[in-house]
Every structure is written in structure tokens, then in C-alpha cells.
């Protein structure tokens, strides 16, 4: 018996200027539950203005290696278009994120959307793609008040940042910046 709730991929947007980035996944019964888990697991630190979640099962994913075998297009009605969000992995560099959101295309199928994305976003070359129907992505919302309630509490907790401690060293050249003399 499968007791596992569906897996959802989580995308976090750190600032208004940054793209949504895949940060990991959570198991959840529905989108609201997934968003709540995503917030608890991935936003214990500041730098978030919004979250997206999408069921892992609806993601059309292709690696560069797979695409060497081609990208067969299904025979579908070209007049029925829908919006797909495009995510790309462009580097093997060490990182805490996976795919970056780079834009959206209109297409009649995920494979068609991928074909359009390859033409539209050639640089840098992709190592892997994720194509997700826009209507399957659920956002924590653009609402300012909601965003503040979800993401602002972490902002004032500066003691969670290693930078709050400056350079901590026992060596003579190390200048200690310590606020606590009350112990």
C-alpha cells in the first residue's frame, strides 16, 4: 500500500529581482499543505518574498543527455495552447539550489514547450530542463500582507546569521565582536 503523500517541488524567490529557484521537495496532501511545509522547511532564514509549489508528478523533465536522442513531439491539436513555466539547470557548480525559473512559453504540449524554450533561451546551454504547466503551480501569493506574515518574522532574527558574530577568534589578531556581557 502506498502511504506516501504526493511529492511537491518547492521553488523559492529570495528577492524581487531574483528568479524562483528549486530548493527541494516536500510531501503533502494538497497545495496549501505543501506551501506550509515548504515554508517551515525552507524559509527558516530571511531572503524570501514568495514560494511556489508544484506536484512533482506533473513536471516534464529532460536532461541534455536525454535530448541527444531527440525531443519527439506528440501529435496534438496545435490550436489548444497553454502556458508553461520554464526552469533550467545551467551549471554543475556547487549550489544550494537546482533549477532556476527563466520564463514562460505558450505551447500545445510540454514537448512543444521545451522545443520553444530551447530556441528562446539558448544561453547558457542547459544541462537539464523542467517544464511545468503554469496552472499546476501554486504560489504563496503576491499579496504584501500575506508575504509579510510569512517571511518577515525571520528578518529580525539577525542572531541566526553567522555574520552577526563577526570574526570570532582566540588569536591575538582576531578582533572579537561580542555583545554579551550579561552572563
Amino acid at each position, binding site marked *: 500500500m502506498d*502511504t*506516501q*503523500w504526493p*511529492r511537491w517541488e518547492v521553488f523559492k524567490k529570495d528577492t524581487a529581482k531574483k528568479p524562483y529557484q528549486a*530548493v*527541494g*521537495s*516536500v*510531501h503533502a*496532501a*494538497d497545495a496549501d*499543505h505543501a506551501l506550509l511545509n515548504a515554508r*517551515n*522547511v525552507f524559509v*527558516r*532564514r530571511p531572503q524570501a518574498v514568495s514560494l511556489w509549489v508544484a506536484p512533482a508528478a506533473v513536471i516534464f*523533465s529532460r*536532461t541534455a543527455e536525454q535530448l541527444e536522442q531527440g525531443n519527439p513531439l506528440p501529435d496534438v491539436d496545435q490550436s489548444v495552447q497553454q502556458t508553461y513555466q520554464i526552469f533550467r539547470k545551467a551549471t*554543475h557548480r*556547487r*549550489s*544550494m*539550489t*537546482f533549477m532556476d525559473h527563466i520564463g514562460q512559453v505558450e505551447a500545445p504540449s510540454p514537448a512543444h514547450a521545451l522545443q520553444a524554450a530551447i530556441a528562446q533561451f539558448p544561453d547558457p546551454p542547459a544541462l*537539464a530542463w523542467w517544464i511545468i504547466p503554469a496552472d499546476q503551480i501554486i504560489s504563496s501569493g503576491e499579496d504584501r500582507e500575506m508575504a509579510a506574515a510569512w517571511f518577515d518574522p525571520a528578518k529580525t*532574527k539577525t*542572531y*541566526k*546569521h*553567522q555574520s*552577526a*558574530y563577526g570574526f*570570532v*577568534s*582566540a*588569536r*591575538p589578531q582576531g578582533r*572579537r565582536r*561580542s*555583545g*554579551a556581557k*550579561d*552572563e
Partner: protein
Amino acid sequence: MTKINEMTMNDEKQTAEFEARIARGEKIEAGDWMPEAYRKQLIRMISQHAHSEYIGMLPEGKWIPHAPSLRRKMILIAKVQDEAGHGQYLYHAAETLGATREEMMDAFLTGKAKYSSIFNYPSDTWADVGMIGWLVDGAAIRNQTMLAQCSYGPYSRAMVRICAEETFHHKQGKEMVLLYAHGTPKQREMVQDALNRYWWPSLMMLGPHDADSPNTPQLVRWGIKTKTNDEVRQEFIAETAPELLAAGLTIPDPELHFDEESGQWIHGPIDWDEFWQVVRGNGPCNAERLGARRQAHEDGAWVREALNGYAQKALST
């Protein structure tokens, strides 16, 4: 016969391609082809790592009500909460390999799965909180920085995220220890006592000597580990020992010295009997820790029940 040969050939070819990918520095992602042994090793390592984060909340969590200032209390709450979060990142990473949360929890609660030996030592005084931050989180960062290079994408990314947070754990502990090392005689005595108890277990937690770690070469070849236990331990001592000494503390190893010729710190013999005793469940706090974890799991039953009720409704609509 032919079929088996073909399968083996195919397997060998795939393994060769897989190893070539790792050699090129590519990350292996969930769903990519991987040898069964690679998948199993990763599930074992990642879930043990997750259990360690969870158990790691206990020795320090005990001190939250007794923090000497509001600032220290907020820091400690945040740190313990981070450890729970690290457990979550890691369980999710293991789940991408096909392990289920139930299997992992079950192995943890029944004592089948291991977790880091270090958390089976008691936290006797408030100064232990500082020493754990400096030494235990410090040793963990050394290990985790290495694992952040690992070939499995989801594990590597979880490690990068965890290391960024661990640096806060490390610094707050070090800051506290240094403050006390330069503080009142009583404070100095407390941190020295904490160092006496935590130095050796911190060296042990980085694992057996290379000669006694038969799995290491395979793990290195597959890019799961990129350094051996002894290499990581050496890095840890080189980073920590000079600073502890500069703080006026005494490291409880009369043989510890810096060897100019090799540029290495030479330490006295590690008591591996003690290490294996702790790993096999006979450390000072094994029973207490696992008991507390089981109790917490039982106490959380109503939350799982409520969520299941919600899920049944959500999934049937």
C-alpha cells in the same frame, strides 16, 4: 544464460558510464540511473545523518529553560530548531532515492539505524552548550563541507544549505567559550571541564581510522565522500587546537603537538573501544536519548492523526 550475460554486460556498461559522469564532476540526480549499491549507501548515510540531526536536539534542548540571558536563549532555540530543519532537509533528500519516511523513522526508533556517537554523551553544564557549538558543530561542518561536494545532487544541495546554517552554530559556540575562557575563574573552570569531556568524543565522531574503514575507497570512487576520515579529522584539529590553546585552555591530550616536519598535528591514541561501545548502544546516554526520541514520536501521534484526517479529505476531492 545469454540473458544473464547480457544483463551483466549492460550493467557494466551503465556502471562505467555512471562512473565517467562522476569523474567529469557531474551531479547524479533523482531518477538518473545509478548502481544499486550507490543508492543503498546513500540512503544509509543520509538517513543516519538525518537521525543525528534529530537526536542532536536533545543534549542542547535540555538547556533552553536554563539559558543565562534572553539573547542566549533565543540563539539556542534557533539552533535547536535548525537541527530539526536539517533533519527535514535530509529525510527529503533520502526520499528522492525511494526510501520512505516510515521506514527511516522505524529503523531509527527501533535502534536498527545508527546516529552520530557524539550525542550519546551527557551535557552536564551550560558551558557544554558552547563547547558543543565550537567542537561538535565545528567537526560536523568539516564533514559536511566535504559532503557538499558529493556526487548526489539532492544530498549535496542539502549540505550546502546546512553548512551555511551550521556556521552560525559554530560561531555562537566559539564566541561563548571564548567569553567564558576570558571570564571569571568559575566560568574558566566550566569551559575547561567541558573541553575535557568533549575533546575526545569530537575526534571520534569523525569515524574510525582509514585503515579500519573498508568502505571508504568505494565511497571516494563514487564521489560520495571526497576525503577520508583521517583527513577530515586532521583538518579539524589543525583548525581547532591552536585556537583552544590561544584561549588559554588545556587540551586533554598530553601527546598532542604540531610536527613541523610533516606540517601535521600529531595526537595521542584514540580510545576506539569507547567509540565502539557507544556505537553499539552502550554509551552514557544511548538509552536516554532513544527513549526521549520515542516519547517525542508517541507524543506527536495526534499531529500525524490530524494530518492524515486532513489528507484523506484533500486527496479524495
